[in-house]
């Protein structure tokens, strides 16, 4: 491995400037759990790594937003998020998802900003946060707020521009919403998922008033399934609606890999969307 620059700027703006060089081999480095794997296997050889840890004091806080939601600094570690009392109250699905996300050593080091920016469709936090209607705030020359579901352009691709860094995740109020993330592995239990399904359902009595259905891992990128949501919205929570939503979700384009064929993953999508909705609402059996 050839040598590379390792820079430690004190602010995200400085970091952005150091990264906006037009060099694709210059990358930000937060927890490093994804990047180091790529470097060790020779998939990625950096020319410059811009370490964001010096900005941690400013960008790792998890704070209430005043409108019932929360703001998570991009440098917050996954463990910090997992154990944060505010987030545990607001969206317990996050802490539950963490228990099957990598392992405690990885969660202690990985940062939420890097987790979202990595663009790997097999990760657990992006679908979970997308189902929770979260957005990311970016820093850099043109700061913007982007829904998590709109962050991804393709396999390991995001819409982030060179030098554009995620500075925070905004989580809206979850009152009335019920959320579940289901991870389906087809080899060892600790494998990358063959399919990730995250659903959120807003209920008024037994009527579904709003929903989010997010598919990941089986698809090229995280995918929000509007067709399944359309089936759910306005329907009565129950097996019929959930089965129909699962059927609608099967329209997503799944991809074949060592974890299963595209056809098999499509089967899993139908079953897991239905089961996630059953678990989220407690309706329609389990």
């Amino acid at each position, binding site marked *: 491995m050839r040598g590379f620059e390792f820079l430690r700027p004190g602010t995200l703006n400085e970091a952005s400037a150091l990264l906006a060089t037009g060099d694709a081999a210059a990358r930000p480095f937060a927890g490093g759990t994804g990047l180091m794997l790529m470097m060790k296997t020779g998939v990625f050889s950096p020319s410059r790594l811009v370490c964001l840890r010096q900005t941690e004091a400013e960008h790792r806080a998890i704070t209430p937003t005043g409108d019932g939601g929360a703001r998570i600094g991009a440098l917050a570690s996954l463990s910090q998020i997992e154990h944060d009392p505010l987030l545990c109250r607001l969206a317990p699905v996050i802490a539950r998802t963490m228990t099957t996300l990598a392992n405690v050593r990885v969660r202690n080091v990985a940062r939420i900003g890097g987790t979202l920016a990595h663009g790997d469709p097999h990760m657990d936090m992006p679908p979970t946060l997308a189902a929770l209607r979260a957005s990311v705030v970016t820093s850099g020359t043109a700061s913007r707020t982007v829904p998590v579901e709109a962050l991804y352009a393709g396999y390991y691709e995001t819409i982030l521009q060179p030098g554009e860094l995620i500075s925070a995740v905004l989580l809206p109020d979850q009152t009335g919403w019920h959320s579940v993330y289901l991870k389906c592995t087809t080899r060892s239990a600790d494998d990358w998922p063959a399919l990730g399904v995250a659903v959120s359902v807003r209920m008024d009595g037994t009527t579904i008033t709003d929903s989010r259905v997010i598919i990941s891992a089986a698809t090229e990128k995280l995918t929000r399934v509007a067709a399944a949501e359309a089936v759910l919205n306005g329907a009565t929570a129950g097996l019929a609606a959930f089965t129909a939503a699962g059927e609608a979700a099967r329209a997503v384009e799944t991809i074949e890999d*060592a974890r299963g064929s595209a056809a098999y993953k499509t089967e899993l999508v139908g079953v897991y969307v239905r089961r996630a909705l059953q678990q989220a609402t407690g309706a329609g059996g389990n």
Partner: protein
Amino acid sequence: MNEIRSISAKQVGRDVPRLESRQKVTGRAEYTHNITLPGMLYAKLCRSTVAHGRILSIDVSAARDLPGVHAVYTGETIRTLIAEPYFGPAFHDQPILAIGKVHFVGEPIAVVLAADPYVAAEAAQMIVAEYEELPAVFDEVEAMTSAAIVHETLKPAGTFADLKHLSGKSNTNVALDYQLRRGDTDAAFAAAEHVFEHEFHTQQVMHTPLEPMVSIAEPGDNCLTIYTASQSPSFVCTEIARLFGWRENQVRVKVPYLGGGFGAKLYIKLEALVAAAAMLARRPVKLSLTMEEQFYTITKHASTFRIKSAVNKDGRITARRCEIFWNGGAFADIGPRVTQKSGFTSPGPYDIDNVSVDSYALYTNRPPAGALRGFGIPQLVWAYESHTDLLARGIGMDAVEFRRRNLLREGRPQATGTLMHDAAIIEVLDKTAELMNWTAPFERGEGVIRRGRAIAIGFKAVVAPTTSGAIVNLSADGSAALYMSTVDMGQGSDTAMAQIVAETLGLVAERVKVVHPDTDVTPYDMATLGSRSTFHMGNAVKLASLHALEQLGAMAREVGLPEGTNYEIRDIFLKKYGMQAGNIIGVGSYVPPYTSPQKGTGLSDNVTPFWMVGAAGVELSVDTETGHVTIDRLINVADVGRPLNPAIVATQLSGAAMMQLGFTLFENMDLDHGQVTNASLADYKIPGMHDLPTVMDNVIVDNNQQNGPYGAKGVGETATFGVSPAIANAIEDAVGVRLTSLPLTPESVLRGIRALRGEKLEG
């Protein structure tokens, strides 16, 4: 420090904690990866990118010019040192670095040496090779008749008599065509009430020791010291000496602890390369493989097994025909021995009068395959126990009763004609059925979850004939040290052997020192493989201890002490020497009796010194919507003779079963035109804690191996035997789906469920 003889009883059969536990958990245990030597260079390999091709050129100039690179060698450089740089235990088919052509994707073609391993790694990437691609063959059955020929000429090593007829043969990929014939199978099939025929497949998988392979060679004046993570230091010594045309005493091989072996670190792997590189560079050279590189080094045979049985109206198997094709990959390694030594047990532990076996070792353009925890037996049991369940089902007989009716009993001839002794086959079956409460009704699940249960039983003959030697040094203070070349790779051999010394000499096992393999110091041992150490080395250690005891008795008589004196050992020495001085050296060597099988028939009246028997009982649940299988209960029942250390035996059983569980349910080397596409632990998954069955029981049946040390025999592989077929049989019991190829993935289960309904998965 006082070693008192009278408190020493019952060292065997006691749960002595592993002698090395404290060293290991405190990070003090010595491993080859931790060794650095003054002036040492790090080696990194450049590997073939094509599965089969003639090498047109290898351009190493850019690599050689990279600052920090000490040297770059190719096969041609090696030839300036060694004229015929080919090695291997069965065939001399593996070049130290490729010469003329490459045989698989990942074959080493050049090595870079540098003081900085990162410089060496970068330089290795700068080497450019050009190939003329040749037709390649990847499937073991196709290799029987393919136009693609992996090796132009077969070069048997000369060590094994049954390979001699292959010397110089060309235009073939068959590296051994083993056959066994007993009785008249044709007549029996013609007369049969029922005939069943099936074909089963296993996939290529890897040993995945968590300590990747590593070797260091330190050159001296016409001599070499090799530090290596090897299961067979004696073989490394012999083979390096042969390659260099040296005496064995010019090569010293030292082996510390291993972080797992499972057959991956057998015979000779990286040692020839570091030895040649060190002699060329005149500097110590270390090669540490990455986890990824292990996928290109040694694997477990993929296989195809065609099995046909005749069953009469009483449910007795009257004939069985076995045809097995072993996918050996590019180099034979020990594949031909797997083909024969496992091949002769391929009809299973059944009493069948008419048997025919054809077992073929095949070269293909895949990464090489060798021995992996079972020496081929798990592939065979997978097939014959799946088949046996289908026979019982086919004639409408209970699966346990059908087996009980057909299993080999004490004194009956196995397929080779060797009479069975001390093999607790029936006892293992009965214990498994009892633990499963087999005759009681079984909860079969409801809704989308369906439950099933099944058993499977297999056996293995330990590889024969093999030799072990041991030295016991009894010091004047009464303490003992054991010198042996058995490698403790995590299986607990140091502890078990110390228990044998202690039991024999009347010492405390925890205080026996075990000196690790060093071919300048420790005597010859064939290798640590195939569950042979407890029996062979155990017998040698016992003989060495008895030899020491005999000398101690003579010393006692010499100083005038009566027979059976209660004098402590150190007092006997004190009486003889007048001070704490002197020592007693006990030596022991063991090679069991053996009769070579007859050529053609494969028959022998003594084909092995002992049999291992293992069964698995499985209860599982199938999610009929996704095909996911949950193992609710796995029962591993084994005949290990008399366990020397029951606690370690239990961990060997659970470890072996878990390893086989991974091979059964998901482990699989994905290959694309010979290229492994999942060569990393991120993409090749092995079982973890969360994959454990909900309940797992490890049970030892009462038995005594009469020719074993204190009644003991091997244990490391036994619990691998039954796992795969028991799970497949239980899946059929649950949902009616019969799977004939490993791994038993959720997708294959779901496809089977849909096929039963006449549906296909879309797409």
